[in-house]
Protein backbone atom coordinates (compact mmCIF):
# COMPACT_ATOMS: atom_id res chain seq x y z
CA UNK A 1 0.00 0.00 0.00
CA UNK A 2 1.57 3.30 -1.09
CA UNK A 3 -0.03 6.43 0.36
CA UNK A 4 -0.42 9.70 -1.44
CA UNK A 5 -2.38 12.77 -0.34
CA UNK A 6 -5.52 12.02 -2.37
CA UNK A 7 -4.93 8.43 -3.44
CA UNK A 8 -3.53 5.14 -2.30
CA UNK A 9 -1.88 2.64 -4.62
CA UNK A 10 -2.56 -1.05 -4.00
CA UNK A 11 -2.05 -4.32 -5.89
CA UNK A 12 -4.76 -5.33 -8.37
CA UNK A 13 -7.05 -8.20 -7.36
CA UNK A 14 -9.35 -10.57 -9.20
CA UNK A 15 -12.30 -8.67 -7.75
CA UNK A 16 -11.29 -5.62 -9.80
CA UNK A 17 -12.42 -7.42 -12.97
CA UNK A 18 -15.74 -5.65 -13.63
CA UNK A 19 -14.17 -2.24 -13.40
CA UNK A 20 -11.11 -2.93 -15.58
CA UNK A 21 -13.41 -4.65 -18.12
CA UNK A 22 -15.66 -1.58 -18.22
CA UNK A 23 -12.76 0.84 -18.60
CA UNK A 24 -10.90 -1.07 -21.32
CA UNK A 25 -14.06 -1.11 -23.43
CA UNK A 26 -14.89 2.57 -22.89
CA UNK A 27 -13.70 4.34 -26.01
CA UNK A 28 -13.59 7.70 -24.22
CA UNK A 29 -10.97 6.20 -21.93
CA UNK A 30 -9.06 4.03 -24.38
CA UNK A 31 -8.65 6.75 -27.02
CA UNK A 32 -5.80 8.02 -24.83
CA UNK A 33 -4.25 4.57 -24.42
CA UNK A 34 -2.56 2.26 -26.88
CA UNK A 35 -5.64 0.02 -26.73
CA UNK A 36 -7.78 -0.31 -29.83
CA UNK A 37 -9.72 -3.53 -29.73
CA UNK A 38 -12.77 -4.61 -27.77
CA UNK A 39 -11.58 -6.96 -25.03
CA UNK A 40 -13.58 -9.68 -23.33
CA UNK A 41 -14.01 -10.38 -19.65
CA UNK A 42 -11.83 -13.42 -20.25
CA UNK A 43 -9.13 -11.23 -21.82
CA UNK A 44 -9.25 -8.92 -18.82
CA UNK A 45 -9.31 -11.81 -16.34
CA UNK A 46 -6.16 -13.12 -18.03
CA UNK A 47 -4.62 -9.68 -17.85
CA UNK A 48 -5.32 -9.51 -14.13
CA UNK A 49 -3.99 -13.04 -13.56
CA UNK A 50 -0.85 -12.50 -15.62
CA UNK A 51 0.03 -9.32 -13.80
CA UNK A 52 3.49 -8.90 -12.37
CA UNK A 53 3.94 -10.16 -8.83
CA UNK A 54 5.26 -6.71 -8.13
CA UNK A 55 9.04 -6.92 -8.13
CA UNK A 56 11.99 -5.10 -9.60
CA UNK A 57 12.35 -7.47 -12.56
CA UNK A 58 8.67 -7.98 -13.39
CA UNK A 59 7.67 -4.40 -12.75
CA UNK A 60 4.96 -2.88 -10.64
CA UNK A 61 1.27 -2.65 -11.46
CA UNK A 62 -1.07 -0.95 -9.01
CA UNK A 63 -4.69 0.09 -8.62
CA UNK A 64 -5.39 3.76 -7.85
CA UNK A 65 -7.95 4.23 -5.08
CA UNK A 66 -9.29 7.42 -3.58
CA UNK A 67 -8.94 7.71 0.17
CA UNK A 68 -12.62 6.70 0.35
CA UNK A 69 -11.74 3.40 -1.28
CA UNK A 70 -13.08 4.07 -4.79
CA UNK A 71 -10.99 2.31 -7.44
CA UNK A 72 -10.59 4.93 -10.17
CA UNK A 73 -7.77 3.65 -12.38
CA UNK A 74 -4.44 1.87 -12.62
CA UNK A 75 -0.79 2.67 -13.19
CA UNK A 76 2.40 0.75 -13.73
CA UNK A 77 6.17 0.74 -14.10
CA UNK A 78 7.33 -1.70 -16.79
CA UNK A 79 10.42 -2.38 -18.90
CA UNK A 80 12.53 -2.08 -15.75
CA UNK A 81 16.25 -2.30 -16.58
CA UNK A 82 18.68 -2.83 -13.69
CA UNK A 83 21.86 -1.71 -15.47
CA UNK A 84 20.26 1.47 -16.84
CA UNK A 85 18.06 1.90 -13.75
CA UNK A 86 15.11 3.04 -15.81
CA UNK A 87 11.48 2.12 -16.27
CA UNK A 88 8.47 3.13 -18.37
CA UNK A 89 5.41 4.52 -16.63
CA UNK A 90 1.82 4.11 -17.75
CA UNK A 91 -1.29 5.55 -16.10
CA UNK A 92 -5.01 5.33 -16.74
CA UNK A 93 -7.90 6.98 -14.90
CA UNK A 94 -10.92 4.90 -15.94
CA UNK A 95 -13.55 6.73 -13.86
CA UNK A 96 -14.09 9.84 -15.98
CA UNK A 97 -15.70 11.78 -13.12
CA UNK A 98 -12.27 11.82 -11.50
CA UNK A 99 -10.48 13.45 -14.43
CA UNK A 100 -9.04 16.92 -13.90
CA UNK A 101 -9.24 16.78 -10.10
CA UNK A 102 -5.66 16.13 -9.10
CA UNK A 103 -5.98 12.39 -8.55
CA UNK A 104 -3.75 11.49 -11.47
CA UNK A 105 -1.03 13.88 -10.37
CA UNK A 106 -1.15 12.56 -6.82
CA UNK A 107 -1.02 8.91 -7.94
CA UNK A 108 1.90 9.60 -10.28
CA UNK A 109 3.92 11.44 -7.62
CA UNK A 110 3.33 8.55 -5.21
CA UNK A 111 4.54 6.06 -7.82
CA UNK A 112 7.56 8.19 -8.73
CA UNK A 113 8.59 8.32 -5.08
CA UNK A 114 8.44 4.52 -4.94
CA UNK A 115 10.35 4.11 -8.18
CA UNK A 116 13.12 6.46 -7.11
CA UNK A 117 13.35 5.93 -3.35
CA UNK A 118 12.48 2.25 -3.07
CA UNK A 119 13.46 0.73 -6.39
CA UNK A 120 16.48 3.05 -6.66
CA UNK A 121 15.77 3.92 -10.29
CA UNK A 122 17.51 6.82 -12.00
CA UNK A 123 15.06 7.54 -14.85
CA UNK A 124 11.34 7.12 -15.42
CA UNK A 125 10.01 7.79 -18.92
CA UNK A 126 6.69 7.66 -20.77
CA UNK A 127 4.98 8.22 -24.10
CA UNK A 128 2.04 10.62 -24.35
CA UNK A 129 -0.17 11.15 -27.41
CA UNK A 130 0.09 14.71 -28.64
CA UNK A 131 -3.72 15.17 -28.46
CA UNK A 132 -3.80 14.34 -24.73
CA UNK A 133 -3.42 17.88 -23.39
CA UNK A 134 -4.65 17.10 -19.90
CA UNK A 135 -2.09 14.31 -19.45
CA UNK A 136 0.71 16.43 -20.90
CA UNK A 137 -0.02 19.23 -18.42
CA UNK A 138 -0.18 16.70 -15.58
CA UNK A 139 3.18 15.15 -16.48
CA UNK A 140 4.81 18.59 -16.64
CA UNK A 141 3.42 19.37 -13.19
CA UNK A 142 4.94 16.15 -11.89
CA UNK A 143 8.33 17.21 -13.22
CA UNK A 144 8.54 15.25 -16.47
CA UNK A 145 10.41 17.01 -19.27
CA UNK A 146 9.66 16.66 -22.97
CA UNK A 147 12.60 14.94 -24.64
CA UNK A 148 11.41 14.21 -28.13
CA UNK A 149 8.57 13.66 -30.48
CA UNK A 150 8.04 10.40 -32.38
CA UNK A 151 6.37 11.64 -35.52
CA UNK A 152 3.27 9.81 -36.74
CA UNK A 153 4.03 7.12 -34.22
CA UNK A 154 0.39 6.14 -33.64
CA UNK A 155 -2.64 5.70 -35.89
CA UNK A 156 -6.13 6.19 -34.50
CA UNK A 157 -9.39 7.87 -35.41
CA UNK A 158 -8.48 7.83 -39.05
CA UNK A 159 -5.13 9.59 -38.90
CA UNK A 160 -1.57 9.54 -37.57
CA UNK A 161 -0.57 11.22 -34.33
CA UNK A 162 2.78 12.04 -32.76
CA UNK A 163 3.92 10.49 -29.48
CA UNK A 164 5.78 12.71 -27.08
CA UNK A 165 8.62 11.14 -25.12
CA UNK A 166 8.91 12.57 -21.62
CA UNK A 167 11.13 11.62 -18.70
CA UNK A 168 12.09 12.59 -15.18
CA UNK A 169 15.40 11.84 -13.47
CA UNK A 170 15.99 10.99 -9.82
CA UNK A 171 17.82 14.22 -8.99
CA UNK A 172 15.05 16.24 -10.66
CA UNK A 173 12.36 14.47 -8.64
CA UNK A 174 14.26 15.08 -5.41
CA UNK A 175 14.83 18.75 -6.21
CA UNK A 176 11.15 19.35 -6.96
CA UNK A 177 9.38 17.19 -4.45
CA UNK A 178 11.60 16.31 -1.53
CA UNK A 179 12.25 19.99 -0.98
CA UNK A 180 8.53 20.73 -1.16
CA UNK A 181 7.73 17.97 1.33
CA UNK A 182 10.32 19.22 3.78
CA UNK A 183 9.00 22.76 3.55
CA UNK A 184 5.47 21.52 4.18
CA UNK A 185 6.54 19.44 7.15
CA UNK A 186 8.36 22.40 8.64
CA UNK A 187 5.19 24.47 8.28
CA UNK A 188 6.92 26.97 5.99
Amino acid at each position, binding site marked *: MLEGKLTILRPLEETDLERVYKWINDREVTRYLAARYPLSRKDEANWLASGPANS*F*EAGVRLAIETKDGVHIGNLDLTQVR*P*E*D*RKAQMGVMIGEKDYWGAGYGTDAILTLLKFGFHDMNLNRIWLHAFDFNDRAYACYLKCGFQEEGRLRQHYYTEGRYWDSIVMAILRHEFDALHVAAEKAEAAGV
Partner: protein
Amino acid sequence: MLEGSLVRLRAMEPGDLDNTYKWANDREVTLWLTSLRYPMSRKAEEQWVDAPTNSFDGVRLAIDTKDGKHIGAINLYRVNPEDRKAGLGIMIGEKDHWSNGHGTDAIKTLLSFAFDEMNLHRVWLHAFADHERAMACYLKCGFREEGRLRQEVYQDGRYYDVILMGVLQAEFAEVRNGDR
Protein backbone atom coordinates in the same frame (compact mmCIF):
# COMPACT_ATOMS: atom_id res chain seq x y z
CA MET B 1 35.36 -11.37 -23.48
CA LEU B 2 36.74 -9.02 -20.84
CA GLU B 3 40.38 -8.06 -21.36
CA GLY B 4 42.77 -7.44 -18.51
CA SER B 5 46.52 -6.85 -18.69
CA LEU B 6 47.49 -10.44 -17.79
CA VAL B 7 44.25 -12.35 -18.14
CA ARG B 8 41.15 -12.61 -20.24
CA LEU B 9 37.74 -13.39 -18.74
CA ARG B 10 35.36 -15.36 -20.95
CA ALA B 11 32.11 -17.29 -20.65
CA MET B 12 32.46 -20.88 -19.52
CA GLU B 13 32.10 -23.71 -22.05
CA PRO B 14 31.36 -27.41 -21.68
CA GLY B 15 35.01 -28.07 -22.62
CA ASP B 16 36.10 -26.43 -19.36
CA LEU B 17 34.78 -29.39 -17.38
CA ASP B 18 38.04 -31.37 -17.25
CA ASN B 19 39.86 -28.48 -15.62
CA THR B 20 37.17 -27.44 -13.16
CA TYR B 21 36.65 -31.06 -12.12
CA LYS B 22 40.37 -31.45 -11.45
CA TRP B 23 40.48 -28.23 -9.39
CA ALA B 24 37.30 -29.00 -7.43
CA ASN B 25 38.91 -32.17 -6.18
CA ASP B 26 42.33 -30.67 -5.37
CA ARG B 27 42.33 -30.10 -1.62
CA GLU B 28 45.09 -27.47 -1.82
CA VAL B 29 42.78 -25.41 -4.01
CA THR B 30 39.49 -26.03 -2.23
CA LEU B 31 40.90 -25.45 1.25
CA TRP B 32 40.03 -21.76 0.91
CA LEU B 33 36.67 -22.26 -0.77
CA THR B 34 33.66 -22.93 1.43
CA SER B 35 31.55 -23.94 -1.53
CA LEU B 36 33.66 -27.02 -2.17
CA ARG B 37 33.76 -28.97 1.05
CA TYR B 38 32.82 -32.30 -0.47
CA PRO B 39 34.41 -34.41 -3.18
CA MET B 40 32.68 -33.38 -6.39
CA SER B 41 31.54 -35.87 -8.98
CA ARG B 42 31.95 -35.09 -12.67
CA LYS B 43 28.19 -34.86 -13.00
CA ALA B 44 27.85 -32.39 -10.14
CA GLU B 45 30.69 -30.35 -11.57
CA GLU B 46 29.05 -30.48 -15.01
CA GLN B 47 25.93 -28.85 -13.57
CA TRP B 48 28.05 -26.03 -12.25
CA VAL B 49 29.82 -25.53 -15.58
CA ASP B 50 26.49 -25.59 -17.43
CA ALA B 51 25.51 -22.36 -15.77
CA PRO B 52 22.73 -20.10 -17.01
CA THR B 53 23.81 -17.42 -19.47
CA ASN B 54 25.59 -14.45 -17.96
CA SER B 55 23.17 -11.64 -17.12
CA PHE B 56 22.52 -9.05 -14.46
CA ASP B 57 21.36 -11.90 -12.23
CA GLY B 58 24.75 -13.58 -12.23
CA VAL B 59 28.09 -13.56 -14.02
CA ARG B 60 30.37 -16.58 -14.09
CA LEU B 61 33.58 -16.41 -16.09
CA ALA B 62 36.61 -18.53 -16.87
CA ILE B 63 40.02 -16.92 -16.28
CA ASP B 64 42.45 -17.50 -19.16
CA THR B 65 46.02 -16.21 -19.40
CA LYS B 66 46.72 -14.11 -22.47
CA ASP B 67 48.23 -17.27 -24.02
CA GLY B 68 44.87 -18.95 -23.67
CA LYS B 69 45.62 -21.20 -20.70
CA HIS B 70 42.57 -21.77 -18.49
CA ILE B 71 43.70 -21.13 -14.91
CA GLY B 72 40.59 -20.51 -12.82
CA ALA B 73 37.13 -19.02 -12.43
CA ILE B 74 35.64 -15.80 -11.13
CA ASN B 75 32.02 -14.87 -10.49
CA LEU B 76 29.50 -12.31 -9.27
CA TYR B 77 26.55 -13.74 -7.36
CA ARG B 78 23.59 -12.60 -5.24
CA VAL B 79 23.24 -9.58 -7.51
CA ASN B 80 20.59 -7.26 -6.11
CA PRO B 81 19.07 -4.56 -8.37
CA GLU B 82 17.62 -2.21 -5.72
CA ASP B 83 20.78 -2.22 -3.62
CA ARG B 84 23.02 -2.50 -6.68
CA LYS B 85 25.37 -4.91 -4.96
CA ALA B 86 26.89 -8.32 -5.60
CA GLY B 87 29.20 -10.84 -3.98
CA LEU B 88 32.47 -11.79 -5.68
CA GLY B 89 34.13 -15.18 -5.69
CA ILE B 90 37.42 -16.23 -7.28
CA MET B 91 39.42 -19.43 -7.59
CA ILE B 92 42.80 -19.94 -9.23
CA GLY B 93 42.94 -23.68 -9.85
CA GLU B 94 46.37 -23.79 -11.51
CA LYS B 95 48.68 -23.44 -8.49
CA ASP B 96 51.61 -22.25 -10.63
CA HIS B 97 49.63 -19.09 -11.15
CA TRP B 98 49.24 -18.22 -7.50
CA SER B 99 51.01 -15.02 -6.36
CA ASN B 100 51.90 -13.82 -9.85
CA GLY B 101 49.38 -11.02 -10.29
CA HIS B 102 46.85 -13.00 -12.32
CA GLY B 103 44.26 -13.09 -9.51
CA THR B 104 44.57 -9.36 -8.90
CA ASP B 105 44.23 -8.63 -12.60
CA ALA B 106 41.18 -10.90 -12.93
CA ILE B 107 39.48 -9.18 -10.01
CA LYS B 108 40.20 -5.67 -11.29
CA THR B 109 38.90 -6.66 -14.73
CA LEU B 110 35.66 -8.02 -13.28
CA LEU B 111 35.25 -5.01 -10.99
CA SER B 112 35.54 -2.70 -14.00
CA PHE B 113 32.76 -4.67 -15.65
CA ALA B 114 30.64 -4.65 -12.49
CA PHE B 115 30.93 -0.88 -12.04
CA ASP B 116 31.09 0.31 -15.68
CA GLU B 117 28.67 -2.08 -17.37
CA MET B 118 26.38 -3.49 -14.71
CA ASN B 119 26.27 -0.13 -12.93
CA LEU B 120 26.70 -1.73 -9.51
CA HIS B 121 27.31 0.44 -6.49
CA ARG B 122 29.00 -2.11 -4.20
CA VAL B 123 30.87 -5.41 -4.53
CA TRP B 124 31.53 -7.47 -1.40
CA LEU B 125 33.30 -10.71 -0.59
CA HIS B 126 34.15 -13.11 2.20
CA ALA B 127 37.78 -14.06 2.82
CA PHE B 128 39.26 -16.48 5.32
CA ALA B 129 41.07 -14.41 7.97
CA ASP B 130 44.11 -16.70 7.71
CA HIS B 131 44.34 -16.52 3.92
CA GLU B 132 46.94 -13.78 3.75
CA ARG B 133 47.70 -14.07 0.05
CA ALA B 134 44.04 -13.49 -0.85
CA MET B 135 43.58 -10.63 1.63
CA ALA B 136 46.62 -8.82 0.23
CA CYS B 137 45.20 -9.20 -3.27
CA TYR B 138 41.76 -7.89 -2.29
CA LEU B 139 43.26 -4.86 -0.53
CA LYS B 140 45.28 -4.07 -3.66
CA CYS B 141 42.06 -4.17 -5.69
CA GLY B 142 40.45 -1.55 -3.47
CA PHE B 143 38.45 -3.75 -1.09
CA ARG B 144 38.29 -2.55 2.51
CA GLU B 145 37.85 -4.66 5.63
CA GLU B 146 34.37 -4.07 6.97
CA GLY B 147 33.92 -6.74 9.59
CA ARG B 148 35.02 -10.04 10.99
CA LEU B 149 32.56 -12.92 11.20
CA ARG B 150 33.84 -14.91 14.15
CA GLN B 151 34.05 -18.69 13.80
CA GLU B 152 31.94 -18.39 10.69
CA VAL B 153 33.28 -21.46 8.90
CA TYR B 154 34.25 -24.94 10.06
CA GLN B 155 37.04 -26.44 8.02
CA ASP B 156 39.78 -28.98 8.57
CA GLY B 157 38.83 -29.73 12.18
CA ARG B 158 38.42 -26.19 13.52
CA TYR B 159 36.54 -22.92 13.20
CA TYR B 160 37.87 -20.01 11.14
CA ASP B 161 36.98 -16.35 11.18
CA VAL B 162 35.85 -14.83 7.90
CA ILE B 163 36.55 -11.24 6.93
CA LEU B 164 33.78 -9.31 5.18
CA MET B 165 35.25 -6.87 2.65
CA GLY B 166 33.61 -4.38 0.31
CA VAL B 167 34.48 -1.87 -2.40
CA LEU B 168 32.25 0.95 -3.68
CA GLN B 169 31.97 2.28 -7.22
CA ALA B 170 33.67 5.59 -6.34
CA GLU B 171 36.47 3.85 -4.42
CA PHE B 172 37.31 1.59 -7.34
CA ALA B 173 37.56 4.62 -9.65
CA GLU B 174 40.45 5.81 -7.46
CA VAL B 175 42.19 2.43 -7.65
CA ARG B 176 41.92 2.52 -11.42
CA ASN B 177 43.24 6.07 -11.66
CA GLY B 178 46.15 4.96 -9.55
CA ASP B 179 46.91 2.23 -12.09
CA ARG B 180 46.92 4.58 -15.06
